[in-house]
């Protein structure tokens, strides 16, 4: 590439973006590799049930599937919303400052 080409050219270093996106998606796909196909559907249905009682969104449910010799483990965890708890905690903290 000569000086003229160099001045004309504005390379975009997008390889970094590609690398980061791939790291995330490959890790995510590996974690569910070999897991049954019904998992995403089951996750959505579970979400509907949980929503009846607590307000959570899809990200709050994580499903982990592990295969050991002879048995399979389906691990389901639901992160309950902390928003309300946090808010009351914050208010309490503020209150303390005021009173203090």
């Amino acid at each position, binding site marked *: *590439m*000569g*000086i*003229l*080409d160099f001045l004309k050219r504005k*390379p*975009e*270093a*997008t*390889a*970094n973006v*590609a*690398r980061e*996106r*791939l*790291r995330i*998606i*490959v890790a995510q*796909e*590996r974690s569910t*590799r*070999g897991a049954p196909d019904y998992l995403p559907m089951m996750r959505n249905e579970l979400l509907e049930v949980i929503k009846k009682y607590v307000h959570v969104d899809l990200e709050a449910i994580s499903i982990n599937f592990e295969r050991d010799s002879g048995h399979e483990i389906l691990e389901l965890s639901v992160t309950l919303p902390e928003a309300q708890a946090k808010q009351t905690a914050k208010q309490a903290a503020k209150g303390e400052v005021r009173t203090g």
Partner: protein
Amino acid sequence: MTAEIIVVTSGKGGVGKTTTSASLATGLAMAGKKTAVIDFDVGLRNLDLIMGCERRVVYDFVNVVNDEATLKQSLIKDKRYDNLFVLAASQTRDKDALTQEGVEKVLDGLSEMDFDYVVCDSPAGIEKGAHLAMYFADHAVVVVNPEVSSVRDSDRILGLLASKTRRAEKGEGPVIQHLLLTRYNPARVAIGEMLSVKDVEEILGIEVVGVIPESENVLTASNNGIPVIVDVNSHAGQAYSDTVARILGEERPLRFVEVPKKGFLQRVFGG
């Protein structure tokens, strides 16, 4: 003696599977190994064109499976190397033309004919054809381009190789995986436009067995029906030779992965 079975696969189409199968098989033959290369892409036969034997196809893979022809009748002897043979894909539209038993019969037949290596050129995708191409493999060459969709698909293929093969199912030890990076452009890597060898190795957690530079010689070779490895003056051909040597156990440093250094005048005036 049983033949070593090598599948050339990728998941994504158009990354260089057939180009690689042709050069790998030819390279093994050049190294003195009796080699057969089989096109598993039923309905979309193409290996014959890349190998330059398209006008000599009489019987194909499915004919052998269905006992309509013998292996001996169906194997096409290469023009350049007399220890190299091509088994063409069938042009039938019947997707179920190949069966696991049929493929096993053909592979066993090749072992009985004292073949050292059988290279299986997989179709794209993860459907039946791709599954059958990898099922009996001892080695897998996973062809990947430095591009997001290709890298992701090859990770999926690596997963399948670890679970959906005879070796995996029978606990006979893993299929030996070789990652082959093709269409590599060191100049674009240098300015951050393309994933580097290291990036791809880190994302997939496996070292490359070779890096084939993007090269106009690949198209020229396919135009002529001559595997690019035969073009010993081309960088792509030399990179394939190195790759074959590494698969055969030799250690060779990677070539053509850096931008060639230019002289002062070239740098100033371009070219």
